[in-house]
């Protein structure tokens, strides 16, 4: 059976209208390719898109790795990863970066003992899932408030974490960066870089205190029940976006990219396992 419309979900991170605008070209190409009306949706948090995918109202989205794990664990038959954004060097990983204010004297995880620590969004891979697993391994203590850190809380998102640390609301936090380039620029891409570009923070005021193992970039997923030809067309379209229209690819990828390359579910098994364990451990 065919489809009558196609909905693309896009995730937060910058001004909603900017996001819609930078994905507008993708919408047009999709409309051309599929011949049905295409709509873009940009809810303010991860969960809106995830619910859309689970409920079947959103057909394609670019998820974070943890977000994909959540969808998969809720309903393994809902979506399927097809592509991933590649960095300029061809890799498709990034890091969760722990950071603090320079003048706080904090330089490593141990220094935050008894102080406050901030995650971003609970569905964020780098802002929550990975650090919540790797940091306890490093410190040897759980991430419960009061156990090792004085207080652990969610700020709501990467931007909020950066601002909160910069303001001194919390002593340290985690956010994402590609880890390439220079600290003082906020690295080549990532939330820190955006904050620097926006004039929000001065990297001289911040220090890196921790860095996760490489984290896989989140996949672009398609709903599994979509007809085979639609999935093929969409995979081809996004996969070839960089060649077709480099500007558009820059907008969709939210920065410089080597393009979108194919990926499969297996690549995310580790992340899914991490999340599964977290669920099992009941926190």
């Amino acid at each position: 059976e065919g489809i009558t419309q196609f909905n693309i979900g896009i995730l937060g991170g910058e001004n909603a209208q900017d996001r819609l605008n930078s994905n507008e070209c993708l919408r047009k190409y999709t409309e051309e390719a599929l011949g049905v009306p295409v709509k873009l949706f940009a809810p303010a948090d991860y969960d809106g898109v995830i619910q859309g995918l689970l409920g079947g109202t959103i057909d394609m989205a670019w998820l974070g790795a943890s977000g994909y794990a959540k969808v998969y664990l809720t309903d393994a038959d809902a979506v399927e990863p097809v592509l991933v954004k590649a960095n300029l060097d061809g890799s498709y990983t990034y890091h969760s970066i722990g950071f603090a204010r320079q003048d706080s004297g904090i330089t490593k995880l141990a220094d935050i003992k008894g102080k406050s620590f901030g995650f971003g969004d609970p569905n964020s891979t780098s802002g929550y899932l990975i650090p919540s697993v790797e940091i306890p391994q490093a410190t040897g203590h759980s991430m419960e408030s009061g156990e090792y850190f004085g207080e652990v809380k969610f700020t709501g998102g990467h931007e909020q974490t950066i601002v909160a640390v910069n303001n001194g609301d919390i002593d340290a936090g985690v956010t994402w960066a590609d880890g390439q380039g220079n600290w003082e620029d906020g690295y080549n891409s990532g939330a820190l870089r955006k904050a620097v570009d926006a004039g929000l923070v001065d990297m001289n005021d911040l220090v890196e205190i921790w860095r996760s193992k490489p984290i896989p970039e989140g996949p672009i997923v398609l709903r599994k029940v979509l007809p085979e030809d639609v999935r093929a067309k969409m995979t081809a379209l996004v996969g070839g976006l960089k060649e077709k229209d480099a500007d558009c690819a820059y907008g969709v990828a939210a920065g410089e990219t080597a393009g979108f390359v194919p990926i499969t579910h297996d690549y995310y098994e580790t992340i899914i396992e991490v999340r599964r364990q977290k669920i099992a451990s009941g926190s």
Partner: protein
Amino acid sequence: MTLANAALANETASYLAHVRRKRLYGGALLALFALLMLSGFKLANDRNAGGFWDGLHRIFDFPAEIFSEAFVNWRNLPGLFVKFVPSLIETLNIAAVSTLFGALAAAALALLSTRGLSLWPRLTPLFRRMMDVMRAIPEIVIALVLIFLLGGGPVPAMIAIAFHTTGALGKLFSEAAENADTKPVEGLASVGAGWAQRMWFGILPQVAPNWSSYALLRFEINIRASAILGFVGSGGIGYDLKTALQWGQGKYDAVVAIFALLFLTIMIVDHISDRARARLVKGERAA
């Protein structure tokens, strides 16, 4: 006594004309309303990711997912209740303090913006506009701006809600004050009482039942508002609810626990305040 035939015919014709005009307006209004509703619904439906009719049968999917998990883990619930009580207290505190401050400010603004009572009669329009604006700004906007200034926590929510409460209660308070009898005020003025004394003794006893009834209702609304502001990152139980809900599977038992806690609180406060208000207003009648 009755009209002549011609006069009656006249009267009938003019009434018929009146009826036709009314029918026309009434019909047009009804048609306009129906059109607005239908086209509005269609527009909203078209712009939605999922259609209304397609989604209708899935409406219980999410609640079912949540409750089935909570059902399996029902053993956790008591512990979770205890765990979230501090956040609940924080939410209640936010609501209480903001209602308190909001009501105090509203009382002052209301008296200042009521014709015949104002300390500075010329400035009443200014105070009225002020209340209009305070009412119009969504709480969430103030809260988010304040989070930027003050950092997270309950205080931005408290200020935001108090701000809105001031505007909303101010309008109701001033309506009540407008209906108050000014004779006692004049009596007090004649003994040389100052403005504050005139209001305190002349107006407050009259409006107190109504004002406190409004304030109680606001407290109820504010509990909900403070829970919601927690949703956008401003402390209290709403924050816990949001984090749990967003994480999803594995925390649905917490979602149910928080939800039950919140819902129960709202019900209880609702019930108490309903009765208190009925008493206040009835007491006024009895007096």
